[in-house]
């Protein structure tokens, strides 16, 4: 898209006005963008998942109070003031949505992908989760309950996927590199 689109010009006019009013500086905006581009993203969530796989005490703490458990990581980006971590198991598959807008645990996953914000995902995953997950390429066994978690004003969710078989000899760093963002939203498994 050209930056001469009406929306681009509107955004530029807005930024210039806010700068004139002393409310912002261009460098502040640059800095925030750099933070979200470089330091906030799904690798943070993947590190949390890997630690939970390796450290049973951490796993228990994470499931008990996600916000407190991830505090030592000092992740930036916000949106984890009330983090609830839901664990997949042989009986339950979890999947996360924000039906009203785009709420998402930024500090752990970065900003949401386009499909997460799309009206089709927001409405359909609640009504027909099994079918939507199949469209993602994920067939959840009939015996497994699907729980759909709708992010509300305060709560943000992270799915703790099951650790894949055959990874017993991998350390946390190697494990973190296996965890795709989609598995932490619940539209994929490892």
């Amino acid at each position, binding site marked *: 898209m050209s930056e001469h689109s*009406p929306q681009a010009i509107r955004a530029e006019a807005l930024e210039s006005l806010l700068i004139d009013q002393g409310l912002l500086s261009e460098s502040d905006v640059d800095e925030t963008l750099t933070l979200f581009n470089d330091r906030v993203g799904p690798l943070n969530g993947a590190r949390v998942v890997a630690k939970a796989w390796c450290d049973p005490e951490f796993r228990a703490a994470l499931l008990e109070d996600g916000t407190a458990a991830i505090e030592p990581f000092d992740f930036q980006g916000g*949106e984890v003031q009330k983090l609830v971590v839901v664990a997949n198991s042989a009986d339950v598959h979890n999947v996360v949505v924000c039906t009203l807008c*785009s709420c998402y645990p930024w500090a752990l996953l970065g900003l949401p992908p386009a499909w997460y914000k*799309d009206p089709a995902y927001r409405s359909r995953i609640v009504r027909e989760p099994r079918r939507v997950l199949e469209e993602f390429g994920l067939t959840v066994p009939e015996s497994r309950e699907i729980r759909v978690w709708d992010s509300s004003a305060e709560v943000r969710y992270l799915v703790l996927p099951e650790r894949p078989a055959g990874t017993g000899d991998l350390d946390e760093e190697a494990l973190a590199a296996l965890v795709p963002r989609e598995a932490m939203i619940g539209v994929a498994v490892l």
Partner: protein
Amino acid sequence: MEDRNESWNGLLLDDDLAPPAANGEVVFDAPWQGRVFAMARLMSEQGHYSWDEFRAHLIAEIGQWDRSGAAADPDSDYRYYDHFLAAFLALLEEKDLLDGTKLVERYEAFAARPHGHDH
């Protein structure tokens, strides 16, 4: 264009399911979207409003679209950041942080520039 065309079926592509090698990825379809996101976030952090207040405006904007006929039309174009920008502008006006008339004036001045002025 943007959001709508990138359906989740695109996830089946190898690239999209690649594990995260690092943080940071392209999350904006156009640079202006990133600037608007950063401005909205920054001003919330500076205490001009809470993110919950912003979210309420965003939900209102998106809800209007969701309830419109557009939502039922699979070919209609859902542009998330258009709603995001509209929500931000409404909130700034509500907080007396923005004069809508001045924005229109500046928009018109910027739109009248010859292309390539900033390159």
